[in-house]
């Protein structure tokens, strides 16, 4: 799995693992119903405590992204939870603020920013913004 942790980040390691797994699910690097590595495999791969992996998985399970099937392992759920739109749009607005302040500082035109957003969207491989014909 393409995950890297950075111990000097302000986010605790279990949160970093959670975030990267959610990102992987969002851009379909992890498919629905795909099997995740075991606690043991991921802890050895990332060189972090197995309990940290367990904590990340437990939280993701509580959020409804993954499920543990006894004796078989941990899988991405076949149906993903509906995210709380309000909660999420707050975060998007925040990210947009910092994006736009960067653009202003760099003197980047708004249309240029939109172009960059499109490129990123294409790169992540899940086009949701419908382009006008």
């Amino acid at each position, binding site marked *: 799995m393409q995950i890297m*942790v950075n*111990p*000097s*980040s*302000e*986010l*605790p*390691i*279990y949160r970093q693992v959670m975030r990267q797994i959610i990102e992987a699910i969002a851009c379909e690097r992890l498919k629905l119903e795909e099997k995740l590595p075991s606690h*043991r495999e991921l*802890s*050895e791969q990332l*060189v*972090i*405590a*197995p*309990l*940290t992996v367990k*904590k990340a998985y437990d939280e993701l399970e509580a959020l409804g992204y993954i499920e543990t099937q006894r004796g078989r392992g941990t899988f991405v759920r076949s149906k993903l939870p509906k995210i709380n739109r309000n909660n999420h749009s707050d975060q998007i607005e925040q990210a947009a603020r910092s994006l736009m302040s960067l653009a202003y500082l760099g003197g980047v035109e708004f249309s240029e920013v939109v172009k960059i957003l499109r490129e990123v969207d294409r790169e992540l491989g899940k086009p949701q913004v419908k382009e006008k014909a």
Partner: protein
Amino acid sequence: MSAVLEFENISLSFKKGKPVLQDVGFSVNPGEVVGLLGRNGAGKTTLINIAMGMLRPEQGAVRLFGMSPTNEPVATKKRVGYVCESQIFPLLSTVERLIALHRAVFPTWDTAMEKDLLDRFQLPMKSRIFSLSKGQARQVALLCAVCHRPELLILDEPASGLDPVARREFLETSVRLLNSAGTAILFSSHNMTDVERIANRVVLLNDGKVQLDRQLDSIREEICVAIVPCSSATDPGVIERVPGCLQVRQVFDDWHAVVEGSPEAVHVRIAAAIGRNGVRCLSVPLEELFIELLGGDR
């Protein structure tokens, strides 16, 4: 689930009136990884030496698997692995003979694990101990400390002086041992990123006392640093009295306060005390927190 290692109100001084450890108490549970932190001279090595039965506390008691390490040296050492910064091995022995000696002494020696580690470390088996590099010597020490599948691994600055690759390999071996044998680990370290990687809990020693004993995630998410300009609070006492404030120090023109709570919650509490005069609250990595807690005014 009883603790594998328990310190109970340990006190010890080498000179009269100058305590090295004062009333230190905490325990390590099976499968737990505890990082023992503190500045040089805080008492970490002394505490570890007490756990290994190399020193006796003046007051208090230490129990390894419920036994006293000084009264039951053999029964306890069978179940512990120990690596320290300045491990002393017979210098003229070869790697091969030293490992053979350990294999003969420990009835629970796991030859498969030995082989696995030898394959990974690629140690020069015929070389004498004194001719090894620092990294190789530490690998030999680790191999000898883990192949009897100890229930508790005690590491005193295990990775100090090693290059980043060797350090990571050392951590990898520890994680594998955690996974394969459920071994508990107590390790002292000055390397905060290593601690963040593998510790579940952190015990911070300061001047021979336990200043902080907490789950690492809780430290990361429930303690933050508030930066308050000195101009907004002439008296640090005002900040010290904010609920949850652990300590305040001055850094140039600002007060740096370590406060319990999320940055948002702490911001509200400080604003209630002094108004919103340019207060910033941040979550910080362990290294910064360590410096905030143990560094003096600047």
